[in-house]
C-alpha cells in the first residue's frame, strides 16, 4: 500500500503514489519550474520549504487530498496545480490541526 518511490533522479518533487494529487518537496523550492522525480515538471506557484506539499493537479473544494495513496484530509477551497497545500486549504477529517501562525509556513530559507 505504501509503495513509495524514493528519489533517484534530480527531481526535487516526490510523487509518493500514482493516486496522489500532491507532490512533496525534498528540498527548499523557489517559485517556478521544478522537476518531478520519476519524470515531468510543474510550475511551483510560490516558494515552499523541505517537506511541504504542492498540488499536482487541480483539486476541488471538498475533494480528498491523497498522499501515500491515502486521504490525509479534505480541501477547504479550490486549489490550483503548483499551489502550496497546507493548513490554510486542507483540513483533517478527524481533529483540527494546531499550528502557530508565526511558524506554520516553514523555514524562511525556502
Amino acid at each position, binding site marked *: *500500500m*505504501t509503495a*513509495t518511490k*524514493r*528519489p*533517484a533522479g534530480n527531481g526535487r518533487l*516526490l510523487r*509518493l503514489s500514482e493516486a496522489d494529487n500532491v507532490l*512533496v*518537496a*525534498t*528540498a527548499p523550492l523557489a517559485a517556478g519550474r521544478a522537476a518531478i522525480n520519476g519524470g515531468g515538471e510543474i510550475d511551483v506557484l510560490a516558494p*515552499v*520549504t*523541505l*517537506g*511541504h*506539499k504542492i498540488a499536482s493537479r487541480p483539486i476541488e473544494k471538498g475533494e480528498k*487530498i491523497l*498522499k*501515500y495513496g*491515502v*486521504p*490525509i*484530509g479534505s480541501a477547504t477551497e479550490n486549489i490550483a496545480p503548483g499551489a502550496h*497545500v*497546507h*493548513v490554510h486549504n*486542507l*483540513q*483533517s*477529517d*478527524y*481533529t*483540527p*490541526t*494546531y*499550528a*502557530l501562525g508565526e*511558524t*506554520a*509556513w*516553514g*523555514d524562511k530559507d525556502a
Partner: protein
Amino acid sequence: MLEGFPRNDGRKGIRNHLVVAYLVECAHHVAREIVHPYRDDGAQVIGFPGCFPNDYAQKMMERLCTHPNVGAVLLVSLGCESFNRFALEQTIEASGRPVKTVVIQHSGGTRAAIATGREWVCGQLRDMAGAKKVPMDVSELVVGTVCGGSDGTSGLTGNPAVGLAFDRLVDAGAACIFEETGELIGCEGIMSARARTPELAAALTAAVEKAATYYATLGFGSFAAGNAEGGLSSIEEKSMGAYAKSGSSVISGLIKPGDIPPRGGLYLMDVVPDGDVRFGFPNITDNAEIVEMVASGAHLTLFVTARGSVVGSAIAPVIKVCANPQTYANMSEDMDVNAGRILSGTPLAEVGQEIFDLTLEVAGGCPTVSETLGHTEFILTYKSFEPIGPACLPA
C-alpha cells in the same frame, strides 16, 4: 553474540544503572542531590510527582525499578505521600535487587536524607562495578520506537528506515514495540490487516478508535506546531508517516504500558487511557511514551526526529534517527543516524541496515550520543487502564 547483566526473572540488562526514585515531587530535590555526584557512574533519577494514589503509576514504578537495565534502587519518600512505598520496596526486594528507602521525614530533613542516600549509593555503585555479564541473544532484546518533532521528511526517510530495522529485529526473534495510537488515526484499516488473528485485528482497530474519540474530546490531535512548520497538515498525514516505523511484520499482539511482551514479535502499545477522559492528554511529551515502553521491558528505543529532539531517557538508551537533512546539518552532535541523506539518493535499505547494526552495538554497550551528552529525561503522570482482553495476545 551480545552480553547482558543477568537478572533473577531470566531477563538480561544491556546497562546496569542504579536508580534513585522519588515517590512524590516533594522528594525530587533530595533524589536529584543524591544522584548528582554519581551521575557519571550510572546513577539516575526517576520518579512520580503526584501525591494521590494511582494504580497505573504504582505498576509503572514497579516495572521500571525491576527493569533489566536496573541493578539497584534507592527509594526517596517524603513520608506523607499516598504512593505505596512498602509495596514497591517489596517488589524490588523480591526481584533480587538491592533496595533501600529513605524517608525524609524520618531522616531529619533534607541534608540528612541526602547524606544517608549518598552513602548507600556510593556503596552500591562500588559493588555493581564488579557485576559479571553473560551471553545474550538478539532474541532476548526488547526494542521500542517513537517519533517526535516529526515533519514532512519523517515519513520519507527516518520512519521507513526504522521500519526496515524493526523487520530485521523481529526476524531475529526480538520483541519490538510501536505505540501512540493517537498517531495511527487513519491507518487503522491497513494496520489491522497485519494482525495475527481476526480478533486481534478488531482489538487494534478499537484501540485507534478509542484514541480518536479521546483526542476529539480534548479538542487537539497528537500534533504540535512544529509538525506544521515542517509541512505536515493533518493528524492523518502525520499518522501515515509514524505508521511506517512499524515495518511490515505480522502484528503479534496489543499490550498496554507495563505489559511485557511474552515472546518475540511486533507489538502495538495502546497508550490511551480507558474509560472517560480523566487526567488530560494521554502522553504530554515524547519521554512519557518512551517511559511506557521502558516499563514494558524495552532495553532501548529508536527515536525518529525531524525538527530536532535532543532527548535521551533514564534507564534505557535512546538512538536518535534524524529524518531531516537540514536539521542534521544544524545539530548533528545530537543525532546517531543521518536518515535525511535518503533524500539525496542514499538507499533506504542502507540506512535501515545502519540502524539495525547500531541497535546491536548499543545493546553491546556502545553509548548513544544522548547518553554521552548526559540526557536522562524521565516523566510519569496519571493514567487509568483496564487490563488487556484475551484477544490481545493470541497464543
